[in-house]
């Protein structure tokens, strides 16, 4: 007991000078706001990071048990690739600075780094340079994760990783620069709050190209009949949806780029309303269309609503966010079924959710949003599509001709876990090995 008292006394001695200082030159209100803003942005960075867990769960759940190791390996690798490439060149490609305002392309050099000013409110009242980098780096990785789900269960691991590196290191930040980096789309008056187009469509276009070049999984289409290939763990897929929704509070909430109480809470409300409506409407549409309500559709519907609201979360009204979510929820069900019938085999519905609903959300922002113009939104959607789809198609095709894009039929039948990794995800659950 005396020792504790002594410690308290010593601590008070240290504290005294601090109190004395406070009276003369304490932290100003602006200093406190800077700390609060920066803390919120770090929280949002962590939330966007959690989305990678959500993607991993969703993709694992919606594919077969024999490809689980492969899916998880890809999802883990993409986080690494996204963050590293963003540090090496992505951040400086996406935010090259005022020198490149209005341009198509800008690059401020390799690597990341800042002087003292980058750590103060002089850099930005909302966050430090490092917070800025980390928050944006978490975004970058999500664009490649979208592709991962669409090409699942048949893509060759090495080729996919090469594609991801190129896409996240160059294409994603280049397109992002057009708007968020102060490029030409910004000049056009394009509005994409948190990335319906710049993140989700960019990933979605690559997903579509990948699916087209790869072809469907073996056994999916036979003599004109569609044979559904069922996911092996719907509890995991559902958990994935919940984690993605959780992460979206950071994805959209952080895109306010400060802890502005009014805007952060407003954006969180529109985001949540769109997710809730997307979920309910997709559930109802699937109930009518498929006779019975389909859990995987309700999961996709929630994500569709989230992707849809992402472009305009800050400028549409709560009622309009419900409309955006409702249309996204309905559209995604038709898109999943329609894309399947076009013989484009997308195991997790990534093109329907991220591409189709990303486009819808961007256009909806032009229709409903205060001060947004539908023309500018159309230009943005078209430009991103005209750039990302051909270039990712060419990349996939070139990789297909050189490295090979797809595993052999035998490897695909046995499962990518054993053929690509020599491992099993559920060793012990099935009597599958003896030694």
């Amino acid at each position, binding site marked *: 007991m005396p020792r504790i008292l002594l410690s308290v006394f010593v601590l008070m001695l240290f504290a005294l000078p601090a109190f004395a200082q406070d009276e003369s030159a304490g932290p100003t209100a602006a200093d406190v706001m800077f700390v609060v803003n920066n803390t919120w942005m770090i929280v949002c960075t962590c939330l966007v990071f959690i989305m990678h867990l959500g993607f991993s769960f969703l993709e694992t759940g919606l594919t077969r048990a024999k490809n689980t190791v492969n899916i998880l390996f890809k999802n883990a690798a993409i986080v690494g690739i996204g963050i590293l490439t963003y540090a090496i060149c992505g951040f400086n490609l996406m935010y090259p600075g005022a020198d490149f305002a209005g341009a198509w392309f800008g690059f401020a050099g390799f690597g990341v780094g800042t002087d003292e000013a980058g750590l103060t409110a002089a850099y930005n009242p909302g966050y430090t340079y490092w917070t800025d980098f980390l928050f944006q780096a978490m975004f970058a990785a999500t664009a490649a994760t979208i592709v991962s789900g669409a090409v699942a269960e048949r893509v060759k691991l090495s080729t996919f990783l090469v594609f991801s590196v190129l896409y996240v290191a160059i294409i994603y930040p280049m397109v992002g620069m057009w708007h968020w980096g102060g490029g030409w789309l910004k000049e056009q008056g394009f509005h994409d709050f948190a990335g319906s187009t710049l993140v989700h469509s960019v990933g979605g276009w690559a997903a579509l190209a990948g699916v087209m070049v790869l072809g469907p999984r073996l*056994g999916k289409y036979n003599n004109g009949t569609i044979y559904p290939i069922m996911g092996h763990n719907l509890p995991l897929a559902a958990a994935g949806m919940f984690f993605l929704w959780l992460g979206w509070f950071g994805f959209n909430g952080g895109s306010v780029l400060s802890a502005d109480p009014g805007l952060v809470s407003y954006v969180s409300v529109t985001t949540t309303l769109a997710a809730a409506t997307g979920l309910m409407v997709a559930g109802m549409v699937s109930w009518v269309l498929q006779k019975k309500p389909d859990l995987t559709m309700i999961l996709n519907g929630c994500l569709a609503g989230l992707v849809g609201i992402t472009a305009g979360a800050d400028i549409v009204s709560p009622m309009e966010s419900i409309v955006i979510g409702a249309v996204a929820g309905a559209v995604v069900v038709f898109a999943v079924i329609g894309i399947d019938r076009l013989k484009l085999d997308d195991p997790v519905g990534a093109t329907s959710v991220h591409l189709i609903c990303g486009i819808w959300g961007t256009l909806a922002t032009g229709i409903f949003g205060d001060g947004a113009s539908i023309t500018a939104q159309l230009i943005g959607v078209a430009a991103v599509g005209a750039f990302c789809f051909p270039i990712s198609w060419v990349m996939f095709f070139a990789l297909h001709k050189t490295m090979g894009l797809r595993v052999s039929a035998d490897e695909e039948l046995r499962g990518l876990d*054993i053929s690509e990794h*020599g*491992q099993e995800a559920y060793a012990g659950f*099935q*009597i*599958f*090995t*003896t*030694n």
Partner: protein
Amino acid sequence: MKLIVAYIQPERLPAVKRALAEAEVWRMSVMTAVGAGSQGGYQESYRGAEVEVNLLKKIRIECAVNDDFVERTIEAIVKGARSGKIGDGKIFVLPLERCIRIRTGEDGTHAIG
């Protein structure tokens, strides 16, 4: 009456089911199995250590049929399961003493069909 037991590669199951349906054999039991044969095993690795896997995943199909259905059942299974490679599987034909349908209490060849 015979009990036909076949071990096949898992990925051939849809083709075998189709062939059996064409041969008008609708009734079957399917279960997963692991087994060792002349196909040999393969290697897995876990955290740097090699694991030898010698029991491979197979599908076991059982069909109880009347004598006049035996040949066409065998033919259908062969047609669906054969790829020409080692590991396509085996078919065993066993005598079947009795067959009773639980619902009606029927006994014998009627109970199978």
